C-alpha cells in the first residue's frame, strides 16, 4: 500500500476540491486507465473521517498529478474521442465518443490553455475552437450537462455551444460522465458583463436583446418539454399537494429569516417588521388554480450563463447548481424557476453596476429588462408547461420571492453591503398589485 499523503495533499489543495472544511482520512485510486504511454486517467476516492467519500478524476503523467495543463498530453483526450476509443480499466471501461459533426478532423489543434475562472471543473480551450470541460468531482449517473446538450441538439435547439464529444466511465464503482467537448464561442460576450458594460452607453440595445433572450429561453423550455416518450424528460403533472409544499417551504423560510434579521443594518429597514405582511402576500400569491407542469430545465439560470454571440444568445452550463446532488439536479421542476432566476439576475445587474462600477443604471432599467424578457418568453414558451394568465405571474412571483429570501440569507452572511438587492426585490413584490 503506497502512502496516500501526496495524493491527499494534491487533491485537497486544488480549487475544484469541494469539501475543504472536512477532514480527509484516506485517498485511494479506485480505478485507472492508461490512455497512452505515460498518460493515465485515475479515479481517486477521498474518504472522510465520517465514513463518506467523494470521487475525483485525475489525468496524470508520471509524477505530474495534473497533466491537463500540458497541451500535448491533453490533446490525446481529443484524439481518443475522435476515434470513439474504448479504454479498459482494471474494473471497468472509459468510453470516448465523438458527436455528430465532430470538428477539427482536418487539421491539428495547436494551442491548449486552461481557463482560469472555473471553480468545480477544469476547462481547456483548444485554438479558440473547442472547449473541453473535465468534471473533477465524479458522481454516479449521467451529468445533466451532457444529458441536456444531447437532448437539445437532437431537437434542433441551436442556442447552445454545439456538443462535439464526451467521455464517460462505466465500471464496478459507478457509471459516470467524465468530460464533455463543446464548440468554443470565441466571439461571445458574457451576458452579465455585457449588461454592466452597457449601463451608461448602449443600454437600449442591450434591453432590446433581452426580448430575444426571453424568446430563446421559452424555446429552450418548449424543447425540453417536448418529448412525452422519454421518461427522463417527459413533462409531468404536479401532484395535488405540490403547491402546498412550495407554500409551506417558502413560508417557513420567510418566517425564519425575519426571526433572524439583525439589528443595526439600515438597509434592512424597508422590510423590518414586515414578515407577516410578506407571508400574507405569499398566501395570496399561492392561491392559484394550478402549478403547470414540471420538466427538466436549466437549473442555474442567470445572466452569467449566457453569451451574446453578435446576433443571438447562446445558453451555457447545463450542470445545475453544483452544490446539489446529481439526482436532485436531475429532478423535474417548474420551468418558471429558470425565469425567476433570470429576473433576479437583472436586479443584481442593476445594483452591481452602481456597487461595483459606480455607474447608476438608467431609469427603470430593471423594470424594462423584466418586461422585455417576459414578453419574449411568453411568445415562445409552450403554454401547456406553465399556468395560464394571472396564475403564471403569481407562481413566478412566488419563485422570485423564494430566491429573494435565499439571497437575503446569503448576503447577510457574506456581503452585508448587498442586502439592499433582495430587500428591494421583496419591497417591490409587496407593493405590486397581486395579479388577478
Amino acid at each position, binding site marked *: 500500500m503506497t502512502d496516500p499523503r501526496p495524493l491527499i495533499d494534491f487533491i485537497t489543495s486544488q480549487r475544484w476540491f469541494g469539501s475543504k472544511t472536512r477532514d480527509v482520512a484516506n485517498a485511494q485510486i479506485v480505478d485507472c486507465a492508461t490512455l497512452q504511454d505515460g498518460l493515465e486517467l485515475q479515479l481517486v476516492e477521498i474518504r472522510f473521517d*465520517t*465514513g*463518506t*467519500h467523494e470521487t475525483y478524476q485525475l489525468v496524470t503523467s508520471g509524477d505530474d498529478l495534473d497533466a491537463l495543463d500540458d497541451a500535448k498530453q491533453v490533446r490525446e483526450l481529443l484524439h481518443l474521442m475522435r476515434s470513439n476509443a474504448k479504454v479498459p480499466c482494471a474494473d471497468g471501461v472509459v468510453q470516448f465518443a465523438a458527436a455528430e459533426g465532430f470538428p477539427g478532423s482536418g487539421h491539428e489543434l495547436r494551442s491548449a490553455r486552461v481557463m482560469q475562472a472555473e471553480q468545480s471543473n477544469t476547462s481547456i480551450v483548444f485554438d479558440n475552437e473547442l472547449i473541453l470541460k473535465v468534471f473533477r468531482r465524479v458522481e*454516479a*449517473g449521467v451529468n445533466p450537462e451532457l444529458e441536456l446538450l444531447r437532448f437539445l441538439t437532437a431537437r434542433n435547439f441551436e442556442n447552445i455551444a454545439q456538443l462535439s464529444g464526451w467521455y464517460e466511465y462505466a*465500471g*464496478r*464503482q*459507478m*457509471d459516470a460522465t467524465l468530460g464533455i467537448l463543446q464548440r468554443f464561442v470565441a466571439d461571445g460576450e458574457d451576458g452579465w458583463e455585457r449588461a454592466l458594460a452597457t449601463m451608461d452607453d448602449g443600454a437600449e440595445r442591450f434591453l432590446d436583446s433581452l426580448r430575444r433572450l426571453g424568446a430563446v429561453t421559452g424555446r429552450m423550455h418548449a424543447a425540453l418539454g417536448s418529448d412525452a416518450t422519454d421518461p427522463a424528460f417527459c413533462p409531468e403533472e404536479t*401532484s*395535488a*399537494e*405540490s403547491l*402546498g*409544499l412550495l*407554500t*409551506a*417551504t417558502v*413560508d*417557513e423560510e420567510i*418566517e425564519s429569516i425575519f*426571526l433572524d434579521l439583525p439589528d443595526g443594518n439600515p438597509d434592512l429597514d424597508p422590510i423590518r417588521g414586515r414578515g407577516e405582511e410578506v*407571508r400574507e402576500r405569499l*398566501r395570496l400569491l*399561492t392561491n392559484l388554480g394550478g402549478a403547470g407542469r414540471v420538466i427538466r430545465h436549466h437549473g442555474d439560470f442567470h445572466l452569467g450563463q449566457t453569451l451574446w454571440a453578435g446576433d443571438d444568445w447562446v445558453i451555457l452550463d447545463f450542470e445545475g447548481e453544483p452544490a446539489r*446532488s446529481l*439526482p*436532485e439536479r436531475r429532478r423535474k421542476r417548474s420551468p418558471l424557476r429558470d425565469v425567476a432566476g433570470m429576473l433576479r439576475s437583472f436586479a443584481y445587474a442593476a445594483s452591481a453596476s452602481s456597487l461595483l462600477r459606480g455607474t447608476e443604471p438608467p431609469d427603470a432599467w430593471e423594470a424594462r429588462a423584466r418586461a422585455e424578457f417576459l414578453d419574449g418568453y411568453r411568445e415562445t414558451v409552450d403554454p401547456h408547461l406553465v399556468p395560464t394568465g394571472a396564475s403564471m405571474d403569481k407562481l413566478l412571483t412566488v419563485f422570485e420571492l423564494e430566491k429573494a429570501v435565499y439571497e437575503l440569507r446569503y448576503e447577510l452572511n457574506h456581503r452585508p453591503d448587498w442586502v439592499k438587492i433582495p430587500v428591494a426585490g421583496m419591497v417591490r413584490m409587496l407593493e405590486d398589485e397581486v395579479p388577478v
Partner: protein
Amino acid sequence: MTDAATPGHWFERDPDWFKKAVFYEIHLRGFFDGNDDGSGDFRGLADKLDYLQWLGVDCLWLLPYYPSPLRDGGYDIADFYSIHPDYGSVEDFQYFVDQAHQRGMRVIADLVMNHTSADHPWFQASRSDPQGPYGDWYVWGDDDTRWSEARIIFLDTEPSNWTWDPLRGQYYWHSFFSHQPDLNYDNPEVQEQMLGVNLAETHEFLKRVRAETDARYSDRVLLAEANQWPADVVAYFGEGDGDECHMAFHFPVMPRMFMAVRREDALPMIEILESTPPIPENAQWGLFLRNHDELTLEMVTDEERDYMYEEYAKDPRMKLNLGIRRRLASLLDNGRDEIQLMHGMLFSLPGSPVLYYGDEIGMGDNIFLGDRDGVRTPMQWTGDRNGGFSRADFQQLYLPPLMDPVYGFQAVNVEAQLRQPNSLLRWIHRLIALRKEHPVFGLGTYEALRPDNPRIFAHVRTYEDDIVLCVHNLARSAQAVELDLSRWEGHVPEEMFGRTRFPRIGELPYLLTLAPRGFFWFQLRKDESE
C-alpha cells in the same frame, strides 16, 4: 453500477443515526394509489416522497408487503422473496428505495420471523409430509397442553395457541392467529433459511443475526417488536453487550402517557420510566403514540386497563383483544392542545419517535370497520374525490376513506394543512425540525424532576454541553410550578420554538406558569453576560 441498497452511497456513515432519527410508519396499501386500482402501492408511495422529505422524517417503516392471503394485514407471509402483486413489482420496490435514498431517507421493513401464513408452501409441505424435508419446520404436538402458561394474544378470535390439523393428525402451535403457524427455531435448517431471508427469534439466533448484519453492512438497524415489560425487553438488546437488536419498542410507556393526560398526573410516566432499566450504549428505544395495531393494554395492570377502557373506549366497538383500536386524534377527542402535548412529550423522552401515517394531520378512525382496519383507512391528501388517495371508483377502494364532518378528508387533508401556517401538520413539521437540530433528544441522558405540583411532567436531557429542560402541563387548567434548578444557577433558559430568553436561573426555586395542556422546552445556556 449504482447500488441503491448501499447506504454508504447515499448517506454519511453514522453509527448513531437511528438514535437521532424520526421514524414514520406507513401502511403501504393506504398511502397512495399509483396505478388507479384502489389500493396503495410502491409507485404511489414514491410519488409522495417529496412530501415525506419535506415533513423531515429520516426513516420510513413499511408494514409487510410480501405475497400473503392478507388475513392479518400482510403479517401472514406466503413468500419471503417477492412483492404482493397489489403493491407492484420488485422493480417498483427497488425504484422506491432508490428514490427514498436520493432524498436522504432510509427504509426499514417489517419482516415477520415468528411464523408464516398457513398458505406458505413450507407449511403445506410440513402438513402433508411429516417425514419430508419440511416436516420439522413448524411446531407440532400430539396434544394441546404444552406451554399452557403462554398468553393468547388475539383473545377475540383464538381460543388456544394450538390448532388441530386434520391432514397431519397433529396440533400445531401459533402465537398469533391459527392461520399463522409458528416456525420451529429449534431446527437449525429453519435458522439458516431465515438468516438468508434476514433475521429471527431466540437470543442466540439474534446474536448471530446481529453479527452477520454488522459484518455484511454498515449502519443497518434491527428493531425488535416485543410487547413486554421493559425489564424483559432489554434482553433483546443483548443485555450489557448490545449484540442483538439495535432498537426495541418501549410498549408500556405509551398507555401511561394516555393515562397521565386523562388523570392530569405525571406519576404513571415517571414510574414507568424509572422502572425502565438502562440499555446498552449503542441501543435505543423506539417510542410511539399510535401505530397500525390497537392501543395495546397488555402491559398494564387490570386496574389500569379498566381505567383506560373506561376513559378511552366508551363504545365497546372500540375494544379489540386487550386494547383499543382508535387513532391518536380521536382518542384525544380531537383536542389540538392534547395532540401537541402528547407529541411534545413523545419527542422529549429518551428514544426515537415513530409517527404513524395520518396522525400528523390528525386523521380519525372508523370503528365500524372490522379488526384493525379502522385505523388503516386511506391517507387523506386533498379534499377531492377519494381524498386524493386514488383515482379509482369509490367502490374499488380497499377501504372507504373517512368522510365524516370532523375527521373526513374534506376537513382533514394534507393539501389544506400545508397551506395553513397554524395547522397541526405545519406544527409537527416544526417539531421534527427542532428535534433534529438537537442531538440531545436522541443521545442525551434523562433525569426526571419531581416538582411538588403532580400535574407537571418535567425532566432534563443532557448531552455534552447541550442541556434541555422539558416542562409539560398535563392539566386541563393553567398551572404554576416551582422547579429546583439550582444546579444550573447562572444559566439562562431559552425557549426553543421562539428562541425567547427567560429570566436567569438563581438560587431560589424557578417559577414557571403553563397554559392548559401547554409545554415548554428550554435550552439552558450559560449566561454570557457574566
